[in-house]
C-alpha cells in the first residue's frame, strides 16, 4: 500500500474514532449521572422525589417539586413574553421588511445570541429587578425584592429571542409565494394573509421553534440564577422567588458533600435536566426535519 493511500486509510479510521469519542461522551454523561443518582433513587421512590415539596438535605428530605415548579414558572413566563413578540418580529422581517433592513437586523439578532449569559444576568440585576421592585410590583400592590420568577422569565425571554426569531424567520420563508398570492388576490390584506394563512401553514415550524427555545430555557443557568431569588419554595405568583433546577446544581455543587445523598440528589437534578432537554431537542429536530422534507 502506498504511503498516500495509507494516510487516507488512517485519516478515515481516526476520524471515525473521534466521532465515536465525541458521541460517547454524551452517553457517558447520561450513564454517569444515572449511576451517581442511584443512591437517592434507592432510598426513595422516584415519584416521591418528583412530587414532594420539602427540600432539607440536612434532614434527608429531597423533594424536587420546588425546583421543577421554579423551572416551569420561569420558562412559562419567558415563553408568554417571547412567543408573541418573536412571532410578530419574524413576521415583520419575513413579510414586510426591505432586504436592506433584513440584512441589517438578522446578523444583529445573531450577535444578541452571542452575548455571554452572565451579562444578561447583570442586566437583570441592574435593570429588571429594580423596575419590578420599585414600579411594577407596587403598581399591583405587591412588596417584592424584585428577585423573582418574573425577573427570571423576563431575562430568559430576552435570551431566547435570537434563536426563536431566526428559526421563525426561516420557517416563514418556506411558505410558498403563490399561497400568499392566493389569499392576497382575494382582496385580503397582508396582515389577514399572515394571520389566517401564513401562520396557520407555518404552525408545525413555529411549534418546533418554541420547543427548541424551551429546551434552551430549561438549561439556562447563570442569568436566571442571578435574578430569581433561589429560595426552594413553590412559587405562588409572579413576584415570588423561585429556584430552577440548573441554579440548584450550580449553587450547591461542591459544597456540603459530606451529607449523605446530597451529592446523589444533585446528580439526579442534572439527570432530570439532561433527559428533559434531550427530549425537547429531539422533538423539535423531528418536527423541523419533517417540515424540510415537505418543503
Amino acid at each position, binding site marked *: 500500500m502506498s504511503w498516500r493511500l495509507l494516510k487516507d486509510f488512517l485519516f478515515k479510521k481516526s476520524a471515525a474514532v473521534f466521532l465515536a469519542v465525541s458521541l460517547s461522551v454524551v452517553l457517558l454523561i447520561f450513564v454517569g449521572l444515572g449511576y451517581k443518582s442511584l443512591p437517592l433513587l434507592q432510598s426513595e421512590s422516584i415519584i416521591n422525589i418528583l412530587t414532594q415539596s420539602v427540600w432539607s438535605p440536612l434532614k434527608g428530605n429531597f423533594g424536587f417539586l420546588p425546583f421543577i415548579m421554579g423551572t416551569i414558572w420561569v420558562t412559562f413566563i419567558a415563553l408568554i413574553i417571547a412567543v408573541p413578540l418573536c412571532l410578530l418580529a419574524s413576521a415583520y422581517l419575513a413579510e414586510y421588511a426591505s*432586504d436592506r433592513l433584513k440584512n441589517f437586523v438578522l446578523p444583529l439578532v445573531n450577535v444578541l445570541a452571542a452575548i455571554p449569559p452572565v451579562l444578561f444576568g447583570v442586566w437583570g440585576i441592574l435593570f429588571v429587578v429594580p423596575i419590578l421592585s420599585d414600579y411594577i410590583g407596587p403598581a399591583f400592590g405587591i412588596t417584592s425584592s424584585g428577585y423573582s420568577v418574573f425577573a427570571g422569565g423576563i431575562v430568559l425571554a430576552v435570551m431566547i429571542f435570537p434563536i426563536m426569531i431566526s428559526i421563525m424567520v426561516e420557517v416563514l420563508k418556506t411558505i410558498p409565494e403563490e*399561497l400568499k398570492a392566493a389569499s392576497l388576490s*382575494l382582496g385580503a390584506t397582508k396582515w389577514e394573509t399572515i394571520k389566517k394563512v401564513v401562520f396557520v401553514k407555518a404552525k408545525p415550524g413555529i411549534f418546533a421553534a418554541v420547543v427548541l427555545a424551551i429546551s434552551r430555557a430549561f438549561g439556562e443557568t447563570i442569568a436566571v440564577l442571578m435574578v430569581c431569588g433561589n429560595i426552594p419554595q413553590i412559587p405562588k405568583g409572579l413576584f415570588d422567588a423561585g429556584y430552577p433546577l440548573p441554579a440548584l446544581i450550580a449553587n450547591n455543587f461542591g459544597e456540603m458533600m459530606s451529607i449523605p445523598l446530597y451529592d446523589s440528589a444533585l446528580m439526579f437534578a442534572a439527570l432530570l435536566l439532561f433527559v428533559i432537554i434531550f427530549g425537547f431537542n429531539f422533538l423539535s429536530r423531528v418536527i423541523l426535519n419533517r417540515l424540510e422534507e415537505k418543503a
Partner: protein
Amino acid sequence: MHTLSSIETKKTQNIVMPSIPHIRIENLNVTIDGRHILKNINLDIPNNSITSIIGPSGCGKTTLLKTLNRLVDDAKGVEVNGSVLVNGEDIYGKDAEVTHIRKQMGLLSQKPFPLPMSIFDNVAYGPRIHGTRNKKVLNSIVELQLRNVGLWDEVKDRLHASATQLSIGQQQRLCLARGLAVEPEIILGDESTSALDPISTQTIENLLVELKDRYTIVLVTHILRQARRVSDYIVFVYNGEIVEFGKSEDILLNPQHELTQQYVKGFIA
C-alpha cells in the same frame, strides 16, 4: 433574431369594443431590477369573453397578467409606469386601494394552492374577509360557487375536511370557486391547467367557457391548442411588446405580423 424595432407595425384587427372595457391598459411599462419587461403596452380587453395572452416563455405574459391585479408590485425591484384602468379606475393611481382592486378579480394560478383550511372555509375565506358573517349567507355562497365549478356533488359530504385531501384537479376547481366567491367581474388565469391531467384540463376549460357570459376572462397560456379551444381573442406578446391582438381565428389562421406567423407555425417557442 428579430430586433425590437421590427415589432412596430402593431395590428389590431376588427374588434368592436364597448365604451368602457373592464380592463384598459394605457402606456404600461414595467421594469424589474432595471430590466425592461413590458414596453408601452396599450390594450383594451373585451368584456365577457376569453382573451388569451400567448408568446414564448420569458416574453412577459405572466408579468402582464399580474400587473392587472397588482401582484407584480409585491415583488421587490419592480417599477410600474402607465396606467391600468379597471372599470375606469386607475389601479396604479394614488387613491387606488389594492384590496378593493383585487376583490374585482379572481386569480387562478399555475398550480392549485388551497389555503390551509377546510373546503368550506376555502370558499368562504373571501366573503368572510369582506365582511360576510351570516352563516346562512355563507352556506349558500359556498354551495353556489361549488356548484358553479361542478364540485358540489363530489365534496358536499366532506365540506369540513381539509382541502388538501382533494385531487389536484378538484383543488384547481376549488381555487376557482374560491375566486368566484368574492364576486369578481374578471377572472385571471396564469397557465391554470399546466399542472393538471388532460381530463381536469378539459373540465377547467369547459368551465371557463361557461363562465365567460358573466365574467371577463384573461388567460396566459403557452399551449396554442388551448388558446384555440377556449379563446375569443388572442394577444401575442414578444419580448415585452404586444405584436398582434385580434380575434382568435384571425391570429391563429391569418396572422398579419411575421413574428406571429412564425410563432403560430411553431418556429419560435
